[in-house]
């Protein structure tokens, strides 16, 4: 995988230089948060073939909890983020424990329904600000030292966390635990007959994914300064699926590429075509599913593999 490493190195250099090249740092932070979210989602869809249709519940509830802790409880950013992760992991445990009882298509419908439950709770709960959401969440000082209100500081902080999480996910997938997950993905009945406690592995993967999604949501709340109902909505759950699918599920870089394309597209289109954004998103879905199932990174990887094969 020399080529892959080269691409990765190039992306890191690009990301480090991006603010110096005059790219709007808040946009980059948003992109990185969604990329992290998509990587967490890919841990489920790509490596355990669990299609969660309600991942916005973890992303959004962590954004709310972090925002609430920082704004009204006077916590610093690190404590706020930890609180967000804890909330998402706990929620992930509850949703996962119910959802892993069913497989495939039912799993998708159950996560969708439970996420809708979370959405309505967020709509009515006293600390979420209802329709308005939480606004002007302060970023504060990291460990009391680094002033995150400076965009450059916040960006490099988000970037450092992103790289750590990306490496962590790589490590998880290549670990014995990750191999068990992939074995379950390939042939679940066989995994059961080998004595693997399938449901427990799936639940652990689900909680891990929820926690990382929570971290992404918490960072998003701090970077952009708000947490709203759209963070917990069905549309956000759909977006993260699209990012993963478009970039290539079951590849490491795919979700990052997919998030890059989707976030850029939205940023670019929302001023120009307005109401047509969902139509375009839907059309990309249709194209991805009918003719482009491997995604961008998956397609490149398979081309590379074909060229390498004759040797």
């Amino acid at each position: 995988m020399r080529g892959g490493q080269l691409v990765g190195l190039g992306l890191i250099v690009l990301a480090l230089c991006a603010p110096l090249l005059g790219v709007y740092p808040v946009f980059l932070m948003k992109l990185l948060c969604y990329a992290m979210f998509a990587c967490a989602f890919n841990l489920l869809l790509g490596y355990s073939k669990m299609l969660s249709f309600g991942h916005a519940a973890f992303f959004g509830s962590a954004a709310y909890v972090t925002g609430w802790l920082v704004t009204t409880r006077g916590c610093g950013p690190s404590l706020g983020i930890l609180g967000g992760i804890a909330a998402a992991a706990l929620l992930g445990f509850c949703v996962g424990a119910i959802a892993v009882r069913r497989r495939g298509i039912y799993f998708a419908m159950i996560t969708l329904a439970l996420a809708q439950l979370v959405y309505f709770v967020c709509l009515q709960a006293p600390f979420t600000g209802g329709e308005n959401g939480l606004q002007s969440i302060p970023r504060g000082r990291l460990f009391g030292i680094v002033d995150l209100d400076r965009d450059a500081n916040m960006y490099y902080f988000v970037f450092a966390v992103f790289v750590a999480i990306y490496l962590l996910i790589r490590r998880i997938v290549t670990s014995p635990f990750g191999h068990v997950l992939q074995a379950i993905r390939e042939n679940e009945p066989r995994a059961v007959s080998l004595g693997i406690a399938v449901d427990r592995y799936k639940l652990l993967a689900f909680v891990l994914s929820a926690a990382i999604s929570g971290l992404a949501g918490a960072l998003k709340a701090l970077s952009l300064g708000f947490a709203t109902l759209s963070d917990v909505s069905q549309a956000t759950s759909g977006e993260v699926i699209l990012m993963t699918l478009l970039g290539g599920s079951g590849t490491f870089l795919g979700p990052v590429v997919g998030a890059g394309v989707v976030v850029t597209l939205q940023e670019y289109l929302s001023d120009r075509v307005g109401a047509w954004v969902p139509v375009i998103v839907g059309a990309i879905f249709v194209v991805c599913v009918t003719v482009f199932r491997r995604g961008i990174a998956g397609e490149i990887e398979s081309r590379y593999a074909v060229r390498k094969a004759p040797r």
Partner: protein
Amino acid sequence: MSTVFGVPLPAILGQLTLGLVNGSFYALLSLGLAVIFGLLGIVNFAHGAFYMLGAFAAYIGLQAFGMNYWAALVLAPLAVALLGVVVELLFLRRLYRLDPIYGLLLTFGIALIAEGIMRDRFGASGKSYPVPHLLQGVFDLGFMVLPIYRAWVVAASLTVCAVTWFLIERTRLGATLRAATENPRLLQAFGINVPLLVTATYGAGVGLAALAGVLAAPVVQVSPLMGSSLVIVVFAVVVIGGMGSIIGAIVTGLLLGLIEGLTKVVYPEASNIVVFVIMALVLIWRPAGLFGGE
């Protein structure tokens, strides 16, 4: 005036009939989902969008051509069913040999496209559709007043459900359909055009959703987003009832509508989450759902 738990009885009965009306929509929609899933193995996420399109077809028919309610009741589902046939031929056909999650994702995309286009054309606000002349007014039952239109919706939905059940379980066409669900290749070998059957089934299931949309048009606001949250509730209904049984889909739909109506009386804050809570409880108690297997 008699009260139960401090709530006047007519108010309770009013909410219960409203619950029954919603339950009829759940029943019609989950019936269509179950029929489609049975033969195509696809969970049709676009079901809510087709329901919305049915309501809009009636609305547009009235605005543009002065088409009355009774004509819309027949023509709107036919038009939407035709659209469903096109979707099946163009897209769904390519996915039958793949993992069913691709079908879910594709129909999700189609729902987004349909809702986005309607939102661009008609805006996000709701449009009202008049109750037909013949069904205006109320029945005075003595202990409560029952709007005629609500009674009509429940009666019509139950009739359609019963006819569908009869078609599938008791006729030769239904027997062919069930055979195709069981073993499509064998049926094809007997000289039955299975792909045609599949296309027609998708059209029929989608038509049922559109029919629910026309029935709903006078009682809810016709808006591009009317189906997107409904379809999630219907999914929960389907998870609770299990998609294997037609009777299961109908009974669960009605029952959950009633429970939802009752919640509106007792504890209104929980009325839009009660179905999901029940789904979670059922899954903990009986992972396979109330009416059978995966």
